[in-house]
Structure formats: structure tokens, C-alpha cells
């Protein structure tokens, strides 16, 4: 970066807040960040108004760390606004990078989501059938709410993005690696993932694999007593590690939980779900069709498992809109 302190903005869109907390998780290194950067925007920590940001000059911000997916008009507005104000836009975390867990809403459209949320879920009490309005005139003036989109977008599907920092949330190590790269200007070509590995989670995982991994049967984690040493996939858990970019240090497998894929697809992946599907089913022991059908039937919720964080950036991206083709 140029002389002077790094001008840093951080923003959250459709996300859980975990990414912001993760930044705090770097512990005392936050001081190094504070020493190196002027934090110009960070809604979780400080109060800002739209006009503060609107008032900046274009390109005034060196780096914007944008976390969360884009699923409504306010988020899209701020994505565009911050894009304009920032020289480097970073999709920070799985939601901004790939759509993340909110992205699973792409199996539905706005209407069906509203039907559920304001209609028939068990906890809904809404006899008048009230739906959110984007504008409401009250004596004091006009109240507005952001417009809820049909789709959930990853940040780069809305505005151009220079770098991606994956993770749900990014680990402190990933964050520091990314920030150091940004501070030192030691950056890969735009469009790259920073702070993560080019290899899969398996590379970092300390579990033992057999010479020829095969799976006898798939189980859900609560159904089995996990051998703390052996590869989780071989034990029949739908571990996404082999199809997931590393860099996290294989934190989940280390505590007996199968990788869920939050660092996103491998660099050469065509489609993360296809990768995981092919790998997990190919090594399932089944010598005839009936066994194959029965055993694969134990692999619950394939779509949710294989695309837990990446649905909006997958090949098919979302389910068709309009009336569902199946119940």
C-alpha cells in the first residue's frame, strides 16, 4: 500500500456475524491491524450512517473486507457503493465468496420463502397474512425496508471482486495471512483466493487413511462412535475434506467432525457438489445395483451436504423459480 495508514472498511451483508467476530479472534494481532490501518467502516463496532460512506471520494478506501451474501436491495446498494469507494474489494468469508449457508435459500424463491415464513411454519401467527412492504407511509414520513430478492448472490455476482478469503468463518490464521498479504502488497493476481491453501483439507488432516479407502456404509455423525485416528470418510461420514480447499488446518476433522466444505471448491473444481458426489459414491462398496441404491440411500440430503456453502456459485446455481416441480 501507499504511504500512510491503510484505509480499511469492513461490512456485513447477509451473514451471521461470525466473520466479524472472527476478525476479533485474531486476538492481540488486532492491535497490529489497528496500527497498520485506519478502520473507516465497521458497523459491528462503530456507528456509521450511509451518508458517511456516500460522502467519501471514489477509491478513497484501500481495502474493503465485505462479508455476507447479497440477498436484498440494501446489501446490493452497499456492495456497489463500497465497490466504488474501494480500490480493492475482498469477499470475506464463505457467504461473500460463495453465497454460504444463506445461499441454500436458492432452492426456493421469494414467494415460497414468504409463504413459509409469513404463512405456514409452526411458529408463525399471522392471521392477517401480513407481508413485509418496502415502503410504508406514516404521518412522520415514509418508512422503507430493503427489497428481498429472489436469489442469494455471492459478492462477485454483484460487483467485481479482487480477492476471496474463504471460511465459515475464516480462521485467524487465514485472516492474518490475507491481511499481511494486503498490507505488504504481496498479492496474487486479482480473482485469487488468499489466506487459504491450493490443496485440499485432506492435505492438512492428520487422520490415517488406508491404502485404498473404501466406505462400507454412510452414517450421520450421531449414529456412530468415531475412531479418533482414522479418516472420517472411511468411517462412513460424509466428510467434504477431499473436495474442499484447505487452509483451515482441518479444524473440524481434528475434533471428530466431518469437514463441511466452508473453504469452498478446489482451485480446479468444475463444481464442488459434483466433486464430492463423485468421490463419496465411487468409493462406496457396492457390487450390484440394488446394493448401490440401498447404500447410497443412506447418504442423506446430498444437495445440502455437497453444496452447503456454495450453491449460488455452483453450475446450476439455484432451483427453477415459480411453482415447485415437486412437493
Amino acid at each position, binding site marked *: 500500500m501507499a504511504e500512510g495508514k491503510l484505509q480499511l472498511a469492513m461490512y456485513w451483508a447477509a451473514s451471521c456475524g461470525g466473520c466479524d467476530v472472527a476478525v476479533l479472534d485474531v486476538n492481540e494481532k488486532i492491535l497490529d491491524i489497528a496500527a497498520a490501518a485506519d478502520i473507516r467502516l465497521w458497523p459491528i463496532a462503530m456507528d456509521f450512517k450511509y451518508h458517511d460512506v456516500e460522502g467519501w471520494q471514489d477509491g478513497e478506501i484501500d481495502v474493503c473486507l465485505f462479508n455476507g451474501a447479497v440477498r436484498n436491495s440494501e446489501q446490493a446498494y452497499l456492495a456497489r457503493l463500497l465497490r466504488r469507494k474501494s480500490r480493492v474489494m475482498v469477499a470475506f468469508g464463505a457467504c461473500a465468496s460463495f453465497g454460504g449457508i444463506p445461499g441454500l435459500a436458492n432452492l426456493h424463491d421469494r414467494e415460497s420463502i414468504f409463504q413459509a415464513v409469513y404463512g405456514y411454519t409452526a411458529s408463525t401467527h399471522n392471521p392477517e397474512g401480513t407481508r413485509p412492504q418496502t415502503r410504508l407511509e406514516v404521518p412522520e414520513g415514509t418508512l422503507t425496508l430493503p427489497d428481498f430478492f429472489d436469489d442469494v448472490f455471492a459478492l462477485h455476482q454483484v460487483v467485481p471482486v479482487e480477492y476471496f478469503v474463504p471460511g465459515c468463518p475464516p480462521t485467524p490464521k487465514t485472516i492474518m495471512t490475507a491481511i499481511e498479504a494486503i498490507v505488504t502488497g504481496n498479492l496474487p493476481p486479482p480473482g485469487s483466493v488468499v489466506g487459504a491453501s491450493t490443496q485440499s483439507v485432506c492435505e492438512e488432516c492428520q487422520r490415517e487413511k488406508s491404502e485404498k479407502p473404501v466406505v462400507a456404509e454412510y452414517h450421520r455423525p450421531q449414529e456412530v462412535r468415531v475412531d479418533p485416528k482414522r479418516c472420517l470418510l472411511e468411517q462412513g461420514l460424509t466428510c467434504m475434506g477431499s473436495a474442499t480447499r484447505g487452509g483451515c488446518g482441518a479444524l473440524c476433522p481434528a475434533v471428530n467432525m466431518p469437514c463441511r466444505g466452508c473453504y469452498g471448491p478446489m482451485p480446479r473444481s468444475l463444481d464442488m457438489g459434483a466433486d464430492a458426489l463423485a468421490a463419496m459414491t465411487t468409493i462406496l462398496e457396492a457390487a450390484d445395483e440394488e446394493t*448401490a441404491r440401498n447404500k447410497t440411500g443412506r447418504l442423506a440430503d446430498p444437495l445440502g451436504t455437497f453444496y452447503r456453502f456454495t450453491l449460488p456459485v455452483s453450475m446450476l446455481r439455484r432451483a427453477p423459480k415459480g411453482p415447485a416441480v415437486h412437493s
Partner: protein
Amino acid sequence: MGDRFEPRIAVLCCNWCTYAGADLAGTSRMKYAPNVRLVRVMCSGRVDPAFVLRAFQDGADGVLIAGCHPGDCHYINGNHKTMRRFPVLQRMLRQWGIEEGRIRLEWISASEGDVFVRVVNEMTEAVRALGPLDWRTRAAMVVPETTHSPAE
């Protein structure tokens, strides 16, 4: 052909059995629906699930994966891998909203030109009955031009 819907069906098939079976249908001058387009790989085990996704994404209305009968694979058991992948792929596509009838796995040997013809015709009719998938339109993601004007 009139106005009826003509589905477009991708056939991802192995070189040794199904492609040869389709060749046999040809040398036997059997006739079948012109709605299929074959993409040849050496073994049905080479059919990456991503190929299927891409075909749908591109606009295919149906995808047929076809290979040697289990036990007859030219590569011993490459087709067993297909056999294991397929049920999950089909279920997953169902979750996407792609009906089961649009994705099919068939074992068609080099000597089963007639089976190839039957499968292609059946599938053409079945997909025709399901109507266009039209993925690009129906699953399009376009960011609305935001009219959002933040009010204080």
C-alpha cells in the same frame, strides 16, 4: 414435426458398449428420435457428475448416461462407479427440482442396438411429456437494478 415440444437430450456414453450399440442401431438402419446427441467417453466411469450438471445448465432437457452392463465393463468395473454415483446424482437433481425422468442410467451393450433405440425413444417421449426444462430462463439469477434509497 409440428409445434410439439422437441426435447434435447444428451447421451453420455461409453465407447465400448453403448456407443457401439448406437453404431449397431445405425448399421441395422433402425430409426429413432433425432432428439439425442451423443458425447462419447471411453467408460461410463468417466462421466463426471459435473458433465450432467453442465448439460442441464446449457439447456439440455434430459441426460442419459449409458454404459456396459455390470459385469461386462471393458474396464472391468468402471461402470460400477457409475452405478454407485447415479442414485445420488438422481436424488440430488430432484432436490434441484429436476424430475427423475430427465436423468436416466441404462446399460446398453454393443449388441443391443434395439435396446438403444427403445431407450432413446422412450426417454424422448418421457422428457417430452415433462416439457422443457429451460434451465437458463427458469433458474436465471439477475441482480435487480437496486432502487434502494436509504432513508434515515
